[in-house]
């Protein structure tokens, strides 16, 4: 017995498309294709092939039209009106994320306590801490926001009469994470280089200390890497290239933390808040360790800079996407458990 035409495309789309796209677009087009093909049984094989070709072309075209419309629809559904799931999640997550940020920042600020011994003037000390703050925020904001979102999901699940599907929280969490990623990019590319250089000049006193790789913007890094390659300084070129990729890879990784937080927090279990926070902190620690090791390997020239920074980030993004796509079944399993 041969399979009906379109069976493979149907199975593939079932995995790749949203439920709505599958029901509204894919199933009717495949149904049309199968009927048209079945009714053409008496016609030549070329005519039947032509029907298949037109059917698949229609499917591709429909998905090509539908795909760009989907994010716009998601945005509208998540953020239209003050009671939309996006605003609800954001309202609930903001105070929690702010508290988590304060807690995560404390040890980072504490790690710079040596400055208090060297700088006696409180005003100068405050200024130096302000210069260091953007670097702290790069580390603290993603994990604080993730913890805030996770705690907000748990809180909303407890207070709402009817539990929302996890996907309705993943979409706004992803949107928040994208905004955070843009902010992180601005921090990485514009604010941190200036703050680092200001710190160095304040501590070192001469006003025109040459910039190191961490004090450069992406355009300056690209130029320095080209110059280093031209004079045959491979080590310097690797250092500049690594820093260049870092400025893109860290913000890109931020996109994963929001949806990952929602997925982890959506599973019903005992001590859900604590387990979610510990789970996120553990995931962040593993990610942090991976990028540190990859960064060192890239600067030392043992790893191509792009691979060094993008492999851990790609693993994180793919794992998050896989977890988010299977989140409903995980939640159902934990509900049964």
């Amino acid at each position: 017995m041969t399979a009906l035409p379109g069976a493979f495309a149907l199975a593939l789309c079932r995995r790749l498309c949203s439920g709505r796209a599958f029901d509204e677009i894919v199933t009717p087009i495949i149904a049309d294709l199968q009927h048209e093909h079945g009714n053409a049984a008496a016609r030549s094989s070329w005519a039947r092939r032509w029907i298949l070709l037109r059917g698949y072309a229609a499917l591709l075209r429909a998905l090509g039209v539908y795909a760009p419309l989907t994010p716009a629809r998601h945005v509208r559904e998540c953020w239209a009106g003050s009671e939309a799931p996006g605003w609800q999640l954001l309202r609930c997550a903001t105070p929690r994320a702010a508290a988590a940020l304060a807690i995560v920042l404390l040890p980072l600020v504490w790690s710079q306590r040596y400055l208090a011994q060297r700088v006696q003037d409180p005003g100068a000390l405050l200024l130096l801490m302000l210069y260091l703050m953007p670097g702290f925020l790069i580390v603290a904001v993603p994990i604080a926001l993730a913890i805030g979102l996770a705690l907000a999901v748990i809180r909303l699940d407890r207070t709402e009469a009817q539990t929302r599907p996890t996907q309705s929280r993943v979409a706004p969490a992803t949107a928040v994470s994208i905004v955070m990623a843009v902010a992180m990019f601005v921090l990485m590319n514009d604010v941190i280089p200036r703050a680092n250089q200001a710190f160095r000049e304040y501590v070192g006193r001469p006003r025109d200390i040459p910039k190191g790789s961490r004090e450069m913007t992406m355009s300056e890094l690209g130029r320095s890497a080209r110059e280093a390659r031209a004079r045959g300084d491979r080590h310097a070129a690797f250092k500049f290239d690594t820093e260049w990729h870092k400025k893109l890879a860290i913000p890109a990784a931020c996109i994963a933390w929001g949806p990952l937080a929602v997925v982890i927090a959506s599973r019903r279990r005992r001590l859900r808040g604590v387990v979610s926070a510990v789970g996120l902190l553990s995931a962040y620690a593993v990610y942090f360790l991976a990028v540190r090791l990859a960064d060192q390997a890239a600067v030392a020239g043992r790893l191509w800079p792009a691979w060094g920074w993008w492999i851990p980030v790609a693993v994180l993004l793919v794992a998050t996407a896989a977890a988010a796509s299977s989140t409903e079944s995980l939640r159902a399993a934990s509900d049964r458990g």
Partner: protein
Amino acid sequence: MNTKLSLSSKEALILELLRGRERYGLELVAASKGHLKRGTVYVTLGRMEEKGYVESRLEESHRGAIGLPRRLYRPTGLGLRALDLLAIAREMLTWEPSR
């Protein structure tokens, strides 16, 4: 609730073709004489269903049916009203005073 009726020319054509009878997507494409494309008709129908202009059901399966059941569409009262309003608006725009 603030509801705004909006009807594109493609949506109007689909409602016109569906007036008085149920049809499935490919039938609409064939009846439109090239104005509707088989690649986009279901995207438009999905949007119209969301707006409440059409409703759909799966065709009943019968003995010897081939493949998946097709989705049949028919206009709702709101859809027909929007179409009538569009026809009135068009008529008013083309109105000429008698001499």
